[in-house]
């Protein structure tokens, strides 16, 4: 029985892993997949149009960069570079649309690069606001979402009804509940579900219809409680730095060899909305309001209500973590800027932490392993 459970879980995770390695858009999805650059995107509106939102998550560490180096500054993060490469090498030619958000200055340029090279994909910026503290912000987000609705309606050749959007809200609300359940296991019983596994399960949602992803998560959540686990003694840490460019899986594995990652900001856009979006009333308004009022935090969203240090302290407390790993992608200005503020606060609170820098294209982890091991030992023995 235990073997069956384990092998069923392994199958689910292997499928997810395979999806995470896939760089191209399948032919059957040509013009159906609507690409968006991190962090958050109102996927429900795309879903309601009968299209599939496709989160662009870079090229990982198996892509060979041949064209992008000549098109992008040498001081720009890897996800911008590899995404440009995926465009130029033809992997993303099936995209039926391309959206970037003003999360940072490099990301805004992605819309320019796409416009010059792939104008047929109708690339543009969805101008989510940096000011979410004004009473006028919900109305503005609502207007921008209505613009998106119009663009997508033009693509599919028919209006996207409120009813259809409400249906999508229900699907996504369920998806978010399932993701929260997954994160609760990771937090309360980390030996049962590793961060790499949870990450792959969440990431798979960026490559399939949400209904299918809901099924997949339900299946994983059915199997997980039955999994046989060995008790392990590892320090509990929170990992930050995975909100946009994705750290390589090997990096997460390296950390998990010696620590439990009990909470993180990996793919935070997938969990940006933290509670159910109301399914009554105007669905676009509900989605816009949720973006402002029921949302997570990240280094690329200024929000006076959520000072980053306080958010980290709350996360540490709620996850019952004893330490933090504060990482940032190389050349990621928002991530790098935040590291200092966070580490000052951790110093003040006498909470141990480790600062790491990564690139999605990293392939060697020996040095990082040594750093993390020393850190974990210091946590166990101090």
């Amino acid at each position, binding site marked *: 029985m235990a073997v069956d459970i384990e092998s069923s879980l392994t199958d689910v995770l292997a499928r997810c892993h395979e999806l995470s390695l896939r760089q191209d858009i399948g032919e059957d999805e040509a013009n159906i997949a609507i690409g968006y650059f991190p962090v958050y995107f109102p996927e429900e509106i795309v879903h309601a149009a009968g299209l599939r939102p496709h989160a662009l998550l870079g090229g990982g560490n198996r892509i060979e960069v041949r064209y992008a180096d000549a098109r992008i*500054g040498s001081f720009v993060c890897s996800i911008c570079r590899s995404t440009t490469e995926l465009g130029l090498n033809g992997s993303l030619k099936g995209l039926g649309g391309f959206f970037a958000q003003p999360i940072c200055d490099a990301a805004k340029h992605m819309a320019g690069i796409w416009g*010059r090279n792939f104008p047929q994909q109708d690339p*543009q910026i969805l101008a989510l606001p940096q*000011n979410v503290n004004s009473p006028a912000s919900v109305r503005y987000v609502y207007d921008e979402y209505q613009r998106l609705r119009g663009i997508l309606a033009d693509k599919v050749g028919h209006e996207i009804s409120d009813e259809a959007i409400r249906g999508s809200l229900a699907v996504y609300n369920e998806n978010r509940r399932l993701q929260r359940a997954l994160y609760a296991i990771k937090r309360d019983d980390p030996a049962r579900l590793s961060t790499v596994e949870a990450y792959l399960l969440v990431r798979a949602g960026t490559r399939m219809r949400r209904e299918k992803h809901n099924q997949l998560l339900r299946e994983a959540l059915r199997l997980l409680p039955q999994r046989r686990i060995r008790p392990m003694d590892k320090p509990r840490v929170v990992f930050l730095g995975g909100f946009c460019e994705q750290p390589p899986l090997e990096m997460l594995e390296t950390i998990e060899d010696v620590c439990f990652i009990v909470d993180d900001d990996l793919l935070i856009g997938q969990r940006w909305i933290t509670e159910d979006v109301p399914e009554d009333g105007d669905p676009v308004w509900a989605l816009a309001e949720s973006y402002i009022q029921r949302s997570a935090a990240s280094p690329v969203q200024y929000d006076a209500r959520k000072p980053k240090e306080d958010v980290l302290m709350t996360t540490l407390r709620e996850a019952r973590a004893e330490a933090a790993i504060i990482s940032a992608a190389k050349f990621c*200005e928002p991530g790098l800027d935040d590291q200092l503020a966070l580490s000052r606060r951790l110093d003040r609170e006498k909470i141990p932490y480790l600062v790491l820098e990564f690139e999605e294209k990293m392939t060697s982890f020996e040095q990082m392993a040594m750093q993390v091991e020393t850190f974990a030992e210091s946590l166990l023995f101090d």
Partner: protein
Amino acid sequence: MAATTHTAKAMDARAAGQRLVNQWLANVHSAPERGQPVAYVFVMGNAVEILRVFGFELVFPEINSLQTGVRKAAPDFLAKAEDYGFSPDVCSYVKADVGLMLSDMAHPSGTRIPRPDLAIASSLCNVYIKWAEIWERHFGAPAFVLDIPGKRFATWKPIPGTAQYDADKRWVEGQLRDLISQCERITGKKFDPDRLAEVEANVNEMVRLWVEILTLNQRRPAPYNSMLDGLTYIGVLNAWRGTPEGVEYMRLLRDEVAGKVARGEGRVRQERFRLIFSGTPCYVNMRRLVELFETHGGVFAASDYLTYAAGGLDSSGLFYDPSRPLESLAEVTTLASQLGLSNHFFSHHTLAQQVKDYAADGIVYHGIKSCRTVATSMADNREYVTTRYGLPTLYIESDLIDPRYWSDAQIKNRVDAFFEVLEQRALLKGGK
């Protein structure tokens, strides 16, 4: 003690500009003594008009940082910030400013920069927002993030009267109203729309003159170098925007530049090539950089920097309607962002147009290591402009103020090679 004012009359524009800059720095220095509130603002999207209504003294941290470069003091400030824990990959303006904070705000100009009572960071450069977060922590001063939606794609056209335009404008206006409430709380003063109208009328006049000055450089020979003289012009324009002194200076400058045009005086003794400069300056070595071009008879007739570092108001000649001061401020702020200030993400067509307007021979792209706002996709832009429009282009890389990224021999080689191409083209076209 009252803030000093000076008249720009009976002086040449250069001396007048210098006096105004000194005077502004002195005013900044003495603001706390005078009990004047201080606002930190950036050059793009700063709502200075509102701050003037409430009598704030303006500090431009970008100007403080660039001045550390001009005065060859940047390495110390950068080192302080890096020692404090900032990554070398962070924007060097931010690091220079952190170095200044760690030096008790004693600026190499001799000015002690006062603490802010308010900081405004627009979304036109996201680093502005991260920078303002640092101030929030260091000074405990509130940051006001002004989100100004830019253009969504290269051919985006904001058309007044459309629902889309109204949505963006409504958003900006809503935030400006929030800002006014915040200024009222900080200063204890009531908002005075008539004063706003007055400030706007001054800005209008300055912009009208500024557009004239920019257009005068379309003449051959170009009367000034947009990346040397132009940098002084915009410094004064920013610091004195919306004031009678600013208007007076711009008038003096316009007359002087127009005089040069009338006399046929060029910036370069023998102008052979007219160029467009795209990107930010290299303040540590700008004279040297310009010299590398001028020795070949090359002049920067125009630069996109003069648009975005001057607040974008020259794009399409935007003017306020002082009879509806607040609505008009929201409109012009939105339009300036969409027509000018968010252009560097999609600047290919605009640059090609500038080449035409200024009868230029090519474009020089200056990639800045720490400024991703301007430089991320320059190489791609260059590729597009070269292939699509067949224009000669040059790409060089250094930094705004960090001398470690200036490689004289390498840059000189590239500039020399570029001029060989230009010479060959000139020969083929029948000689210059």
